[in-house]
């Protein structure tokens, strides 16, 4: 079987298109590259949507934590503490069994027990908490002069937030937010190891890498392939966040622009 045929058969296997049965014997390099790459679809799906939705909740939470009102501040602080203070792995398990119990009460929760929705919700809340803390830190370090200037221009309320506070907050938070985005993509590999079932063996990249490592008893092929895919993904994230960073800093003289510094990733 040629490699093109393998790609046709397994290229979209992780979303249920193509060959139903996974290869059981005679694993070729092409098999491993194709299936692990196919699994990357899920990693990108989880990461992208969690980031997208999480961004808005994170802004809300950051503003809440910076608020002077007790009833806005406390819930935000607790939200951030709970999601940053406990392992993501346990959060996945807890959410899965929570949805499983809710499913017994109301069939409406049926979809929540599958990974595409349930795990996405956990990742969304988790990244919102981590990003919220980053944004909160940025909010607190907005130069006082910027706010004074906004006041001098007669800006207040929503206009001041939209035109001065929010862009400055994003600009200050962007390097840390880039790191957070990379960690989030890495964290998506936990999904299929934490309760959420891989229905009909449709899993993410690590799920397939683990499948091959178990079947061939040789970890030295599938994991480096996985690593390669993730390095490409990380570089893409860095590249696209770098473009946004340039846009956010476009008004500054070129020597004062903040360069993105990528720190090594860390488990959550």
């Amino acid at each position, binding site marked *: 079987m040629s490699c093109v045929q393998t790609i046709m058969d397994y290229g979209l296997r992780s979303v249920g298109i193509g060959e139903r049965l996974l290869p059981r014997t005679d694993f070729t390099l092409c098999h491993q590259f194709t299936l692990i790459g196919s699994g990357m679809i899920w990693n990108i799906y989880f990461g992208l949507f969690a980031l997208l939705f999480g961004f808005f909740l994170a802004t809300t939470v950051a503003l809440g934590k910076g608020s002077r009102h007790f009833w806005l501040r406390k819930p935000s602080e607790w939200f951030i503490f709970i999601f940053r203070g406990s392992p993501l792995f346990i959060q996945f398990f807890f959410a899965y069994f929570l949805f*499983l119990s809710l499913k017994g009460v109301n069939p409406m929760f049926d979809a929540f027990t599958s990974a595409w929705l349930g795990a996405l919700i956990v990742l969304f809340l988790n990244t919102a908490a981590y990003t919220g803390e980053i944004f909160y830190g940025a909010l607190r370090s907005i130069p006082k002069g910027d706010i004074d200037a906004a006041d001098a221009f007669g800006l207040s309320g929503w206009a001041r937030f939209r035109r001065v506070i929010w862009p400055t907050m994003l600009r200050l938070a962007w390097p840390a937010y880039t790191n957070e985005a990379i960690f989030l993509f890495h964290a998506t590999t936990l999904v299929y190891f934490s309760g959420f079932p891989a229905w009909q063996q449709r899993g993410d990249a690590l799920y397939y890498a683990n499948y091959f490592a178990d079947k061939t008893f040789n970890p030295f092929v599938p994991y480096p392939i996985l690593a390669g895919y993730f390095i490409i993904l990380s570089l893409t994230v860095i590249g696209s966040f770098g473009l946004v960073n340039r846009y956010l800093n476009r008004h500054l003289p070129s020597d004062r622009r903040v360069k993105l510094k990528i720190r090594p990733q860390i488990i959550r």
Partner: protein
Amino acid sequence: MLPPPPYSTGITIFEICADPSQLNGFSWLSCYLTTGKHMAFYQSFGTVLLLLAITAPTALAFGFMGAAGARSRIAPLRWIGKTYTAVVRGVPDIAFFLFFVIALDQAFEYVRHRIKCPDWTDAIRQGSDFIVCQAAKLPLGNSPQWIHETYGFFLAVLTFAIVFGAFAANVLFGAMRAVPHGQMETGEAYGMSHRQTFWRILVPQMWVYALPGLSNLWMVLIKATPLLFLLGVEDIVYWARELGGTKTPQFTDYPHGDWRIWYFGALLVFYLLFTKLSEVVLERLMTRLTHGQATTGGEAQRKGLA
């Protein structure tokens, strides 16, 4: 690895627990929470703490070697150190965990095979099999259960130490660079050798700079402990899944529905308390270490007193 040993459920602590079907309410719960399996569950919290206690210093040692290597004047050592610290960038750590636990096991068996069975002619990797001679198996096929468990735990510790050592190496490398250069130059002016300035000037001073990064790492290490489950160790996650699952009267004296959500809720609370406690302790440590230091923190303390 062998399946876990059967835990006897017949042993009970309280006299009244002899016939659980007659109990209800609080006494049922207190009997239920003291069964043999629950004792194993509580012990697994000890496993997690033991892992932390062993891994933290080991990872620090790995990190120190990595950072010292990355600073070395000998090129190959520097390359090894730099590669080690750079290799964790860009790749999900859980992939490292899954990889190392098999790779280390095979590496040990391969080395033992080479030493113990030199006249073995067959290839070790035959298709999908990894075949070494009987004497090279780790642990030996006839060793007792506890050796299997200890070996599994040892592999897990080593895997954690390698991954976290790379993180620690990064922190220590940064801390070594943060020590003012004038300090090193003064050492050299006194005629100290490269080795002497490293051990007498650099190493004692770098810890203040390393502490924020290391305490962050400690928090991360705590949050990584449930991954022990993926490495095949019977940790708290394993027992929470085991004990929480639906139990029918045929197999246990304490039948109940699906309680896994409560068990994982308890684990969540355990981790939250543990991180909070660490935060408080590390905060105090930092306050003590910055006392009298010529840093922003130390200056703020001085002004607060005045």
